[in-house]
């Protein structure tokens, strides 16, 4: 059953940056946009599994640190002309805290 899990305080994620969240099953990158919108995506680029949490965020996109693929954080899709997709997770901010649906 999926449930909302408290992850971290919003201000512990740098603006236009990310934090790496490790669960038992997988690594998830949680990003914070310049408008304080939060996004969560599996920490693996669809190209060669690069850790997206280490990439540079701009707008709602992250550029993979390994080979510069650009991944849309809202959908998990690679931006054209690259093709591929990584899982995204539902995420919300309440009372200054970030919750992830797992």
């Amino acid at each position: 059953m999926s449930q909302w899990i408290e992850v971290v305080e919003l201000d512990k994620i740098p603006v236009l940056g990310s934090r790496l969240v490790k669960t038992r099953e997988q690594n998830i990158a949680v990003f914070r946009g310049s408008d304080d919108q939060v996004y969560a995506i599996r920490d693996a680029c669809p190209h060669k599994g690069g850790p997206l949490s280490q990439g540079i965020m701009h707008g709602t996109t992250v550029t993979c640190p390994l080979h510069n693929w650009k991944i849309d954080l809202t959908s998990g899709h690679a931006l054209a002309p690259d093709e591929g997709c990584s899982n995204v997770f539902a995420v919300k901010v309440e009372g200054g805290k970030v919750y992830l649906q797992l």
Partner: protein
Amino acid sequence: MLKENLVLIGNGMAGVRTLEELLKLAPDQYNITVFGEEPYGNYNRIMLSPVLASEKTIEQIMLNDESWYTDNGITLHKGKKVEEINRARREVIASDGTVAHYDRLIIATGSVPFMLPIPGVDKAGVIGFRDIKDVDTMLEASSKYKHAVVIGGGLLGLEAANGLMKQGMQVSVVHLLDTLMERQLDKPAAQMLQKSLEARGMKFLMQASTAELLGDGRVTGVRFKDGSVVEADLVVMAVGIKPNIALGKAAGLYCERGIVVNDTMQTITDPKIYAIGECVQHRGTAYGLVAPLFEQAKVAANHLAKYGIARYQGTVTSTKLKVTGIELFSAGDFIGNDKTEDIVFKDAASGTYKKIVLEGNQIKGAVLYGDTVDGSWYFQMMKDGTDVSAFRDSLLFGQHHLGDSGHNPETRVASLPDSAEICGCNGVCKGDIVKAITEKKLFTLDEVRAHTKASASCGSCTGLVESLLAHTVGGDYSATPKTKPLCKCTEHTHDDIRAGILQHSLKTMPAVREFFDWKTPDGCPACRNALNYYLLCAYPTEYQDDPQSRYINERAHGNIQKDGTYSVVPRMFGGMCTSDQLRAIADVADKYQVPTMKVTGGQRIDMFGIQKEQLPAMWKDLSTAGFVSGHAYGKAMRTVKTCVGSEWCRFGTQDSTGLGVKLEELTWGSWMPHKFKLAVSGCPRNCAEATIKDIGVVCVDSGYELHIGGNGGIKVRVTDLLCKVATEAEVLEYTGAFCQFYREDAHYLERTAPWVERVGLAKIKAAVVDDAAQRQALHARFLISQQPAQIDPWKARANGAEALEFTPITLAQ
């Protein structure tokens, strides 16, 4: 908000290119309607010559088929000629009565062939060379008739003549002057061209003035002013084009030769109306080549999208003749005058001719015949105003000879097989690139990069890819503009932005983006990192570094590896070490179970496979043992490599290791536009390989030679000699000054080698060597910038700085 209506008259390359650029910037701003006289979508008019020569088909030269218009919500009225523009009612009216209302209008009616006003010009079989219909007429005539006469020995005329000859006709070219293509070629090149075309069977009637076209109904011959007559079943007029301004003129727009426009491509009469392409006159010039049209399209689109920051300032054009087997290139002022000098190479036997016109050591023009691979290199230097004095004696041998440094390489792409690998990083072959260019109809380097990944990584094959692009789509491909914007977020160049940061005291990234009217709120990885560096360089003691605007390697102070682990390289000044230091590194390696260790090319020890969260603890241990960060991960000063020098070596002339340590103590930690390496060799045997470093010191008995701008990476480049000095103190001062000049002048991610080639050695010598006051000022600024830079980032992080970066969040689930 209600969408405004945008109407385009003219479904040709210039107009549709404007729409494409506009859709990129503001896809939803306008309802767009297009009127095109021809019954087709948009096609690549410059490729009509290959179609005529049966080297390409019409399908291959279509740029936008009808589905493109539908997909972008554009209404296309094809085969409808616009008869009238009613400016008062803001309407255009087509021949079939179709009326379209506009809020903004683009006139891109192109040009019409100039037909000589002589008797018989209206006979059947007399045509210009402008559109698909003309090509069809020529192909049809070639199947029924034998004799063709092309009037006009210019670019278009010769391409038409070549095509007709390929179709089996006997072709005579009539030219008024005594040399062909006089607007593009000087006399020797024109003569070589004529000879080679004659060898293919083309006939020439030079200095011949056409008087009359003979025949009843269909043309049968051409009579000249001297009374002579030649047989002709087909006459192609290619004596020139004239801007098609009839519609604009009738609408009351001010016209001279073309419709007169300002720098934002608006007609000077009516700012709601833009004009673009061959129908236009801008600053007195009407262009007939495609590169300027594309630049104009960009500017008009920018204005239509209400950015309003682009200006069209005219285009320097170059020409290539699209006749298979004949290589010909010309650009600029290739004739010269009494202030210019020529460098000429001519080998009639091999069919090669090269002429470069110089004025004050800058290229003003060039003509190449037979061997044109260096055309785009000369052209780029001509546009950049590069000072060529440093390699003037080998200029004619081309860039290949010069030993280029990875940017703008030029090779014989045309002769490469399809299987030749062009992009070594991404494994892209010539065949893949050519296929993508032709199938996806790519015109620009960026498009080729996006679709094939060629030149998208290290960029060293950029020149090759550009050459392929030029070769595949013809000489008029959309060349990289002479002023390259910093990135897609802005129209402004690196230099503009660096100057603006200083002049207007812009001290934060948002301030820069606001001042220069950035298109994206947060920028992109390219501009964020560049701006972060530029601000840090301009305000070293004030600027607050933004970790989110650095590559992960610089943020994590280690090199990310393919599995997401990091590598750690402690600094060993000058490559020197003690047994205690080595033991300390060994202890750290044991403690953290380092799986792989290696000695680097820069004489350091590299430890691989470190988890990110372990880095601060490891740094703490290294820091305790006296090590600081080696910056092996940064766009920064990396290493000073040394050979052993006079302390031990029987050939050593100076203390190269001691000097190496001093140089590294001076420069370590400095953030640079790109990675930066030094070396000190103790004698001219040069065991430290100093002459392929950004700064190489070669010790000699009487002092120290300072070499700069070398590169041992993608493309090997040997350094240039900057100067020779007598003392170690001078070496240190010149080094600091050179570093600072590079830091303040180069573009972000530009290594010293391409930078030296771009700005010229003379400029660097003037600042660092010739002017003692400037050298001291540069050196002083370098020292100021080093104060904050030499706070060891490893120690700071070991003590808790940036802790979040290194701490993952672990969930129980």
